[in-house]
């Protein structure tokens, strides 16, 4: 039979997973409403980086602020702009010490976004899909983001679909708010490149 301490450790692990799941989903809800300061406050002060699709790598908490506040939040949202990111299918693994964790998620997006740049041009209705492989850290009893990495599968006009137009819209690192490093792993459809999971196979251990 388990001891009280063992049971406590097992419950803590389950609570950690639930808290991380919540953190990731709340992140998605804030992004949907362009609440970028709230997003930034979900990151640890020791955050490593944020890298979304082909925007490049923004390093440290400073980079996190630059990416969300200056690049994405640089101008107020326009009338008609729509951003829905459904955060799905989380696989969260907490390390044995309970201090850091990793999570893989799908994001299915329904958007209405400007055509010319991140803020300019006519609005276009879009379907998007991609995978997060994120890292989390527990500080003072709370889980925070340590690293956000998003791999884009497709971002297509509603009228065309992912086979005809796999990626449309803002491409490449911003000139106005440049990243600290170029994109490290940008291979949307139809590259046939699959983002490796952070976990080993649960049965074979491979």
């Amino acid at each position, binding site marked *: 039979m*388990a*001891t009280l301490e063992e049971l406590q450790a097992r419950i803590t692990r389950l609570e950690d997973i639930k808290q991380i799941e919540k953190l990731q989903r709340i992140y998605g809800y804030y992004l949907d409403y362009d609440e970028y300061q709230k997003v930034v406050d979900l990151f640890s002060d020791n955050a490593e980086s944020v890298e979304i699709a082909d925007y490049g790598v923004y390093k440290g908490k400073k980079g996190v602020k630059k990416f969300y506040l200056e690049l994405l939040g640089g101008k107020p949202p326009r009338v008609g702009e729509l951003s829905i990111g459904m955060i799905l299918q989380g696989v969260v693994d907490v390390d044995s010490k309970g201090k850091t964790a990793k999570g893989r998620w*799908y994001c299915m997006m329904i958007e209405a976004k400007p055509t010319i740049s991140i803020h300019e041009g006519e609005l276009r209705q879009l379907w998007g899909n991609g995978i997060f492989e994120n890292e989390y850290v527990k500080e003072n009893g709370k889980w925070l983001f340590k690293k956000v990495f998003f791999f884009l599968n497709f971002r297509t006009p509603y009228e065309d*679909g992912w086979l005809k137009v796999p990626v449309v819209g803002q491409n490449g690192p911003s000139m106005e708010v440049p990243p600290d490093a170029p994109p490290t792993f940008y291979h949307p459809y139809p*590259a*046939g490149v699959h983002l490796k999971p952070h976990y080993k196979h*649960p*049965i074979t251990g491979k």
Partner: protein
Amino acid sequence: MNLEELEKQVTLMEDIQEIETLQRRYAYYFDSHQWQNIVDLFSDSTEYVELESVGRFLGKEGVKRLYYDHVGRKGEPTPPWILYLILQIGGVVDVDPDGKTAYGRWQTLLPEVMPYAGILRQQWLHGYYENKYVKEGGRWMFSRLDWNVTFYTTYENGWLIQPLLGSLWNPEAKADAHSINFYPYPSGYHFPYHYKHPITGK
């Protein structure tokens, strides 16, 4: 409550968590075309797998025949333009009181690209899963996977205009039997739940 009762409750929560993770990993492996990794998620005492109209595959041997030989083309590299994103949504997992078997209902909304009569097609699919899991050597594995497709349509036409596109009963898949639950839209078929009503118990 004594420690033993508490441990039972903790184990139940761990079991549900592990089964949810198992189901989600299955989908990530599927989307990455890692067919051997999928086969290894199934128990050696697997009952069967049934996928839409492809058929019913019996035992662990059937699991290999379906995922590795048929879908995975015996390990042949997949062309890069083949795309599956079998998003796993809405898990309802119930563990039996003995803690050894469990059942889960899920649904998937699935953007896909597949060749159809030699032409690449972009497709939307939807379907429900009713799966069975077993705990062996302290780990949860699949013992039954049943995927019931609701629609299988082209991106351009949609589910009302064209509920079902191609890929019906392919003899090359070498299934052991025809699918038993294949009644896509607009049949009105309701794929049975593994669970009873949580309030009335009916």
